[in-house]
Structures are given as structure tokens and as C-alpha cells.
């Protein structure tokens, strides 16, 4: 048992901090629903940050740490599936990576665009194809989610079959979901903490009211738990750990997605404050893989058969 970051991990996280500094701030009065950056994406690829999982001394825990770190940014980059899932399917799959479940093709697909690798997971195994323009229906311009999303119009007839069990991919998908949620939860918590410490009503900061302090403290507990469970699930490769991590991630996301906007009052309804850039990613994550019920049943199967 050793839960300390090793030297390599600390170094990588520090490096990412300095690399992403220019992207850490939110443009004032930005009114977009989702922020993306091709330059950042490019820099991450060039520096190999999305390929750490395959490096023997680094592995899946380091990949989860990278994903957590990147998710904290207001800009959304497709890191979770690339860093944590692609390596077990085919490390050469072109990015971005989009994962979809065979029976659930109607939902918005994150990062879907022409050229993306779409991996379909389900009863027929793990299959993939490269998305072309005619398979994609754009979402409406002002979709609320803080990820770029589009819809699939259908699946091609000939998909490439991968030699890996669907359950394996689902397991790692849950790890990716939890790691990404951990970072989003962490950044959203920082943001709400700052806001409530500064905003005054009744002559004192809102953060001095115990009714609000306790709500924040409870989400701190949940955020910390998701962080550790995501790392553990990455480290053990155990399907029960992965399902439990994803379950807790979705529970926390659901709560935070309501609470943090509520606690900001009218400001929480605006695009002026960046909160939505984290919460409206979290909200979409709550819908993934059948939602909390899906994760809970997967966990029950893994634990008790």
C-alpha cells in the first residue's frame, strides 16, 4: 500500500500546470457554452501527456491523475478516453475518441466530429469506425453542455472489430468518467468557495452562514472521495472499484450540478460566471452508461455476482 505521488507523477503534474497556465483563466464575460482549444490539445499530444498509461513506470494511475488535472481547466479537452481507454483498445486510434454504448445511440456524443474515432461497446463486442460528416448531426448552436457535442445519425455497416472484451472497455470507461469528474468537481468546488467567500449579504460573506458552509463541506467530502476512488479504480483495474468510483462520481455530480448554481443565486444563472463550464460537463457525465442506476447495478454484479 502506498498512496503517495511518486517523483515522476509530481513532475508530470507540475509540468501540466505550467503548460496549461495560459488556459487556466476564463475570458471575462465569455458567453460561450463550451470552451475548447486546438492549441492546448496539440500541446498535450506533442508532450505525450495523453500516452502516459503505456509507460511502464507511469501506468493507469498516472493517466487518471493527468485526466483529473486537465478536467479542472475551464477549457474542455478530450483527454479521458484518449489517456485511459484508447491504450487498451488500440493506442493508434486517431483522436478524439468517442465512446458510445450499443443500445444507447441517441444521446449527445462528446467531441464527436469528422475524423473522430467512434468506439461502439456492447453485446457485439468492441467495434470502431472513423466518423465522417454524413454520420454526424450537429447539436443546436447553443446547447447547454460545456463539451462540444454532436449526434450520431447511425452506425456504418462495416466497423473494425477489436480484440478486447466489452466489459474491459466498460470498466476503463468508468475509470475515465470518475477521473474526469474528480477534476471537474475539484475545480467547481474551488470556484464556489471563492464566490461564497467574497459575495456579501446581510453585511457578511455568504460563506459565514452555516446552512451554506455545511453544504459546501459535504460536497468537499464527496469530491475527495471521488478523487481517491478514481485513482484506486485506475490502480487496481477491478471492475467493482470502477463501477463504485463512477457511481460516486455521478452522485456527486448530480448534487453539485444543482447546489453550486443555487448557492450563487442569479449569478449562477449567467454565462458571466464560469461555473457552468464545470457543472455542465458534470451534468452530461451523469447521463453516461445508464446513470447512477447503471453504475450501481454494475457494481452489484461485480461484487456479489
Amino acid at each position, binding site marked *: *500500500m*502506498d*498512496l*503517495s*505521488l*511518486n517523483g515522476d*507523477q509530481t513532475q508530470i503534474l507540475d509540468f501540466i500546470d505550467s503548460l496549461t497556465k495560459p488556459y487556466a483563466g476564463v475570458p471575462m464575460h465569455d458567453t460561450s457554452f463550451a470552451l475548447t482549444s486546438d492549441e492546448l490539445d496539440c500541446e498535450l499530444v506533442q508532450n505525450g501527456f495523453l500516452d502516459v498509461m503505456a509507460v511502464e513506470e507511469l501506468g493507469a*494511475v498516472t493517466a487518471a491523475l493527468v485526466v483529473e488535472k486537465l478536467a479542472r481547466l475551464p477549457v474542455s479537452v478530450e483527454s479521458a478516453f484518449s489517456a485511459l481507454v484508447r491504450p487498451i483498445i488500440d493506442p493508434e486510434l486517431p483522436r478524439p475518441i468517442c465512446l458510445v454504448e450499443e443500445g444507447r445511440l441517441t444521446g449527445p456524443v462528446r467531441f464527436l466530429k469528422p475524423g473522430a474515432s467512434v468506439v461502439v461497446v456492447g453485446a457485439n463486442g468492441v467495434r470502431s469506425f472513423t466518423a465522417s460528416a454524413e454520420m454526424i448531426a450537429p447539436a443546436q448552436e447553443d446547447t447547454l453542455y460545456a463539451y462540444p457535442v454532436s449526434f450520431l445519425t447511425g452506425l456504418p455497416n462495416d466497423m473494425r472489430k477489436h480484440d478486447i472484451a466489452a466489459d474491459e472497455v466498460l470498466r476503463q470507461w468508468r475509470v475515465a468518467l470518475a477521473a474526469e469528474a474528480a477534476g471537474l468537481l475539484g475545480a467547481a*468546488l474551488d470556484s464556489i*468557495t471563492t464566490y*461564497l*467567500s467574497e459575495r456579501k449579504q446581510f453585511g*457578511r*460573506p455568504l*460563506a*459565514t*452562514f*452555516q446552512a451554506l*458552509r*455545511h453544504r*459546501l*463541506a*459535504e460536497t*468537499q*467530502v464527496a469530491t*475527495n*472521495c*471521488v478523487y*481517491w*476512488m478514481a*485513482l*484506486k479504480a485506475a*490502480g*487496481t483495474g477491478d471492475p*467493482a*472499484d470502477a*463501477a*463504485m*468510483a463512477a*457511481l*460516486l462520481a455521478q*452522485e456527486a455530480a448530480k448534487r453539485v450540478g444543482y447546489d453550486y448554481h443555487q448557492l450563487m443565486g442569479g449569478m449562477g444563472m449567467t454565462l458571466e460566471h464560469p461555473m457552468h463550464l464545470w457543472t455542465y460537463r458534470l451534468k452530461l457525465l451523469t447521463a453516461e452508461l445508464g446513470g*447512477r*442506476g447503471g*453504475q*450501481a*447495478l454494475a*457494481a*452489484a*454484479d461485480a*461484487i*456479489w455476482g
Partner: protein
Amino acid sequence: MDFDWTTEQQAFRQSLKDFLAKNLPEDWEKFSEHGPASPALTRFAREFCGKLADNGMLFPHWPKEIGGEGLGPWEQQILAEEMWIAGEPRGGQYMNVNWIGPTLERYGTEEQKAQYLKPITDGATLWCQGFSEPDAGSDLASLRTRAELKDGNYVINGQKIWTSYAGLADTCFLLTRTSNDRKKGITILLVPMDTPGITVRQIPSLIGEGDIHEVFFDDVTVPESARFGEEGQAWEIIAYSLRNERLGIPRFYLARAALDRAVSILKVRGEFSGEIVRAEAARCAAMCEAAKTACYALVQKRVDGLAIGPESSSARYAVVQSERAVCEFVVEYVPEALAGASPYLKMHHQRGIVAGIASGAAEIQLNIIASEVLELPREPR
């Protein structure tokens, strides 16, 4: 980062399991229905802890200089887990080896060490912790039990409440007020429980016979040499000695075992196929696992020689939530457990329901997280 136990750690855990299998009576499960502070368990623990001591398993985590084996925080955690999951056959003596012994070593006079350490390391003595009072619970620093120094003796008057183990304890680690200077006016006295003027009254409770007590002090007189540390040093000493106790009991471990037990009962009855019950059980398991992992992150800090700070309140709160979830699950799906059908689940329930109160209420943990982890501006006083 590595989430697996080393071979040595696994072997250590196995040796504890083997010891327990050999030394717990056949009817232990029924027997351990008696709370950890019950007369029955206290009597049993005296003998059992003696055997642990003979086998080097009573305080292996103490540093070698004070007679331990010098094993690390992970081994201390494993020891705590295996004992707690077995129904804590050490009874109240777990406090001795977790913090009373090491605190005596550090702050005690030679006379106090000579008097108190050997019975602890022999596994033959029971202590109680006289902190809380009727008007000083969460606000411990407002305690009022008075100790006045008169002619070389302290004369104690006042009342303690919720004192675990008091009924059978040999000695009380007692917080008293020696001046009105709030935290700086509190002084520790080590008081033999057979001193005249002490009255112990059991409080009937939901958590088992003989567990919690009121303790009355009427002109209880002890020599000045019973003072532990200096006058007014109590707060500093308990902050130090309870530092490593901040994580508390590994409740998540028993909670998870209780959950597994409940699930196996449901399976036998063919009542574990519905999606709702399965999802609820999984949620409980996830909460136990999360609490465990949050606690382990703090054990790691101890391994790394770092002080455990307010983040322990966060882990503690996760533990409280996991206990609550499992207690509620059992009542909802295996209600007969609390009516005699499963001593083990009843035992868990009675230990589990106090998680959010004993050793610092859950809301106080939230206050600490808000002020010291999130560093929110303080509430006005």
C-alpha cells in the same frame, strides 16, 4: 501509488486472523453482542489482551524504544481493522494501546509510568476517558468539573457523562477545570476509579448494556502527583495524543462486512435479484470503499511522517455516511436482524449508529472542513 498490500502486510493480517480464529470462543458471535464496554466483554478482554501481549500482538505498532515492535501505521491500521471487524475483543483496551500508553510515555512522570504502563502492556487494565459533561459536549472547552489544589491534594467536584467503560475501568483520564481561562484552564488528572467520592451510574441505551455512564465526583481527593502534565496543559496534551486517533475506528471495515452479511442473507432467501435492492446495496458498498480510501490517504500521511490535519474530518464524515447507509440498508431489507435473527448485524447496528456522535459529532466535522479545509471565512461568534 500502489493500492495492494505487500506480502508482509498480508502475512501480518493473516497472523491476526489465525490468532483470532484460535483464541475466540465458539459462540463468539453471539457473545460479542455484548457491547465493547459491557461487563462480559471487559472480563473476556482482560484475558484476551493478555494473550495478545504474550504473542506480541497487543502493541506491535509502538516504537521499539517503548517496547513495541516498531511496525508502521499500515500495520496499526490492519490491527485495528481485524480487531474491529471481529467485534473488538480487546474491549476498551484498544484505547490503552492506541493513545493512552504512548501519551503516558511522553508526558508522564517516572512514577506515573511505573504505576500505569505495565498493566497496559500486560493487557490487564481498563481506562476510561472523562471528557464530556452534561453541558460540555461538542463545546468541550466549556467543561466545569472543578479540581482545586488544597494542601498537596486535588479535590474534584463535578460530573462527567457518556463515559464509556467507566463502570469497570481502573483509571480515569480526567479533564478538570483548574482556572477559568477556557482551554488554558483545563488540567488532566489520572484518577483511580476506586477513589472514595466517585459514583458511576449506567445510562440505559440503544447501544448495549453497560456502555455509557454518568460519573459523579464529590470531594474526590487525589494527590498532586496524579496531575498529568502541568496545570492548563490538558488541551495541548490531548491534541497531541489524539492526533493519531483522528482517523478513529476503522468503521468502514465492519460496515462493509455487515453489508456482505446482509446480502448473503438476502441471497439465501432469493431476495437479492431486484434492481432496487442491488443498487442500494452497491451504493452502500461504494460509500464504505470511499470512506476506506479517504482514510487510507491519511494513513499514508502518517507513513510519510506528515501530520494529519483537518482533512481527517473529511474522511471521518465519509465514514459516518457509510455507517448510516449500511445501518439503514439492514433495517430496511433485513429487519429481523435487530430482533435477534443476526447477532452480528445487531452488533454492527449498535456500533454503527453512534458513528456520527461519539468522538466529535458529524456536524462539528463539517464545521472543521468549512473553516480549515475550505478555509471559508469564519462564522460570527
